[in-house]
């Protein structure tokens, strides 16, 4: 059963991950930060109920949902690579990788095991944060489709972050270097794209930057996914769009159609981009792990997956290009 050879690696990592107090503290910090963010948003909204536009429970629920979604996404963006950034390098640093090579566990199984173990921890964090969404239920205004959309973006961000950590770890084989590289890349992706969008905006008479600037940014993608959460179909409440709360992160992803602010679904393009990146990074990581570049059987499998992804992308191009073309 060579197919299940990644299981020992996964099980071992799962056992190891929850030893000690690091995981417990991370859980509390993750849930606690989400709760604090939610309370801050609630206080801000409740403190301004009498000012400006009238606000309804559904809109408060949407504001909390948006705040919560962004907080969880920000945490996932920075925690997911941390879960895997030492997974390969630690084996090298402990000089256990050569021993592993002598076992029936192939590099591809090793990598899949490490990736699943890292993602399992992120999934544990997300599941632990689920009760926080009950506060949103108190106010309503968020539908199942909104929740699914946000969870999909969160999950794919977690996968991509974990793959990025794994890739950096396999590339440098040193935890310190991998961490530096990984977080430098993250800062470049998160901050750099926003900075570039703002520079573009400044150089073009403060017009919003083209949506393509935000595609790679996980926070912009989440903002775009959250921006689809519409207020109740009311003349009154339509005027208070949750997009107001996302103005910074939704740079260039909001268009005004028939007087209405509409968030472009650029998160769809982000999902495609992250999917392709993850596939490619895993492929390269495998070869980095083995330090051999000849064609292996998994290359054919991965090539097939890439081709399938490209075909799927071509077939669904209208769906994911909708965000980039500026038409909601």
């Amino acid at each position, binding site marked *: 059963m060579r197919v299940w050879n990644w299981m020992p690696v996964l099980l071992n990592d799962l056992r190891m991950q929850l030893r000690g107090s690091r995981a*417990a503290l991370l859980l*509390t910090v993750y849930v606690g930060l989400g*709760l604090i963010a939610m309370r801050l948003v609630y206080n801000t909204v409740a403190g301004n109920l009498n000012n400006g536009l009238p606000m309804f429970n559904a809109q408060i629920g949407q504001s909390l949902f948006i705040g919560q979604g962004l907080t969880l996404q920000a945490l996932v963006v920075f925690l997911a690579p941390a879960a895997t950034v030492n997974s390969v390098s630690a084996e090298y640093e402990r000089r256990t990788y050569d021993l592993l090579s002598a076992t029936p566990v192939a590099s591809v199984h090793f990598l899949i095991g490490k990736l699943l173990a890292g993602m399992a921890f992120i999934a544990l964090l997300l599941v632990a944060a689920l009760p*926080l969404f009950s506060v949103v239920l108190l106010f309503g205004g968020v539908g199942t489709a909104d929740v699914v959309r946000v969870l999909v973006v969160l999950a794919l961000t977690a996968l991509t972050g974990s793959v990025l950590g794994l890739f950096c770890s396999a590339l440098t084989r040193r935890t310190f270097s991998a961490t530096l590289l990984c977080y430098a890349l993250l800062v470049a992706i998160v901050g750099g794209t926003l900075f570039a969008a703002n520079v573009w905006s400044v150089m073009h008479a403060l017009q919003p930057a083209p949506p393509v600037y935000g595609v790679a940014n996980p926070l912009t993608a989440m903002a775009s996914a959250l921006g689809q959460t519409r207020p109740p179909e009311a*003349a009154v409440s339509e005027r208070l769009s949750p997009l107001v709360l996302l103005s910074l992160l939704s740079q260039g992803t909001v268009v005004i159609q028939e007087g209405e602010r509409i968030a472009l679904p650029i998160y769809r393009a982000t999902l495609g981009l992250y999917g392709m990146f993850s596939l490619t990074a895993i492929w390269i990581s495998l070869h980095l792990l083995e330090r051999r570049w000849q064609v292996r059987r998994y290359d054919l499998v991965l090539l097939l997956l890439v081709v399938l992804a490209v075909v799927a992308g071509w077939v669904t191009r209208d769906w994911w290009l909708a965000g980039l073309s500026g038409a909601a």
Partner: protein
Amino acid sequence: MTQAGRVRSVTLLVLVLISITGSLCLPTYAAHESSAQAAIGLDVRAAFDGNYAPERWLPLTITLRNPGAPLRVQVAAGLPGATSRQMVVVELPGGAETSVPLMAAMDSQAREVQVQVSTDTELLAETTVPVRPRPDERLIGLVSDRPLSLMLPARQDLQQLPLQAFMLDSRSLPEHPAGLSSLSLIVINDLSDQPLSLAQIDALLAWVISGGHLVIGGGVDAAATLATLPAVLRLGSVGEPTELDPVALSDYTGTPASAVLEGVQLRFAPDVIGFGEGRTLLWGRRNLGLGLVTQLAFDPTLRAIANWPGAPVLWDRLLVPTTTSSSQFGATAAFAVEQTRTLASGLGYLPAISLPRSNLLFVLLAIYAIVIGPGVALILRRFDRQAWAWLVVPGIALLMLAVTSAIALNNRSSERIVSQLSVVEQIDGDTARVRSVMGLLSPVDDIVALSLDSAALVRPAPERTSNFGSVYGIEGDLAQDQGQIDVQIRRWEIGGLVAEEMVPLPALDAEILLTPEAIEVRVQNTTGQVLRNVSVVYAGQAVSLGDLPPGGLSSAVWPPPLAALTPRERISNVVLGEALAAGRDVGGQIDRRLLLRETLLNAGAEPLVQAADSGPLVLGWLNVALVPIDVDFRDAARQQVALLIARPRISGTGEAVVPTGWMYLDLQERSVQSCRANGISGVATTTLPVEVPLRLPSAMATFQLEQLRIDLASEREWPNAGVRLELYDWRSASWVAQDFDGPGSLELAAAGSYMQGGRILLRLDGRIAEAGCVLVDAQLRGTLPPQ
């Protein structure tokens, strides 16, 4: 066939024919039976011959004849295409005729009113009444027990505001001011036979205060007519019959009047502006609220007037509406319409929703955040089963999700919102007129039951759009005299309705006392309601008296400390100035409750301040609507704000100083062309001499002037020379040139002869046209005689 057989056959044939005939007749008979009840006779008569002013009420008199069994029917009147109707439930005794009044809420263009009589299941009768909007005309009600016809100018002879007169007998005069709302003038001439009821008098008074012009006829029956009117509507007493001065009438109309003009002597109160000379005054006028009362010394039905060629000019000049500003609602007084629209726009300032209780949820989640990490880890470490956390943590998380979700769903609050705004204006000692708008917001399409005072008149609110939301008029049959209304509301839109009612309300005991030392403002709350943020406002200044519980008394010195010297443009700025300004600073946000108060001030008090003789006002805030409307909305966020407006009396004896701003420009007296500069009313100048009439509030008409200071300023630069200023000397009846060419202050030490009845007249001549809009103010020192 035998004889017996033939007989049987014929008999059978006859029986068959009878059966067929009977079976054919039976349905006809049955149908007749069923429609017998439906034969309801219906006659509808619209007041004012069906003429109405846009957006006002039109009284209908509906006569129903029921030849059948007793019935309970609904009579509804609606405009074509309207989504709401006015409705009244009537018990119809069998074989009798019943007459019911019904007010139809008019729009600005309807040409017919549809009236339907129905039971819960069946339409019994319907008819259509032709009506006609009169947006730019003077609709005049002639109330007299004798025939009264005025020789009014023909429509083609007038440039604007043609006159339409309708005879009303005193019995049919509406008992609700809304019923008079289409009229801009009412002429009462002879009510000696049938005095007005108390409700009719209250309605008449409220109509005048809201901007109506009441003309009271003179002549030998005038004393009897006056006796039926309240003191506030009487300008003076009627004396002996006398010969009136026809020359003044000739001068007024430009047509020689009859040499013999019989009338009565009028002895007016000091604050009444008389027309004519001495003991033969032709008429007198006094402002009352936004309205005007004119009392004639002659009977308008006099032959010398009725057949006089100058009569059309006389009536055209005399029968003027109080407000002639043109608007889409017509050129006549549109105060009520404008007030309703302003109030309706305030419905966008919705109250904050009722927040659900969330603290329990946050506390539970905080505990959970600790338990899910260290808590679980410590317990599992104790059993050396840390790896179980992969199952325990999701298990606890899902359990917690279920618990907190149940709590959340159980504590969800309603999205329904009810907002009611009211303007309460004191009419006389024990009555107030309340105009109230209510907005209903629901997340679902709904039919809502409203319970309200049966005397309230309800109509849909005018459609308004603001930055804070759109308001549409509620839909449904709005019952009058029922106290229960079911209305349909659309989800996520503010459904608005307007309710009007006269309510009993003890008058505020408010006084401005002028003493030699100071001016004191004193208000005692006698309304039985808690009054918040009470203030007295006059001449662009406001004194705050704080909150007044029932029976509470508060006083302060006028003028208020640090009061602005320049009157601001709007009363809302005077009362709420600093708070509003802070909210309008860059980055600031104004509390919607403050915006709501601003709207109420703009709707209720601003028109009064802009009126000719507004006098000081007492403003206070009530947390209850005096037209209570109960809405069957569970857990709804509710807001009730009412602005109470009352007028303090001005009193005092002895020496007094009248501060700047108290004298106002009397724009009606001399047809002064007004203008505004820096938010202050001024006089528009031309190359012709400009007369500037200044008046003290009516209550100070007896003020005896000793020293006068006149302040002159202008919108543009004042000419450096060549401006002549004259003051009218009432004793010598001549203009007296002053050695002062402005701008600045002119001080006169012995100025007693320049004031009469609280009036001062200035005349500006020469190059004054270069100054543009001229602002005139005065400060007086003198004596108030004992009352």
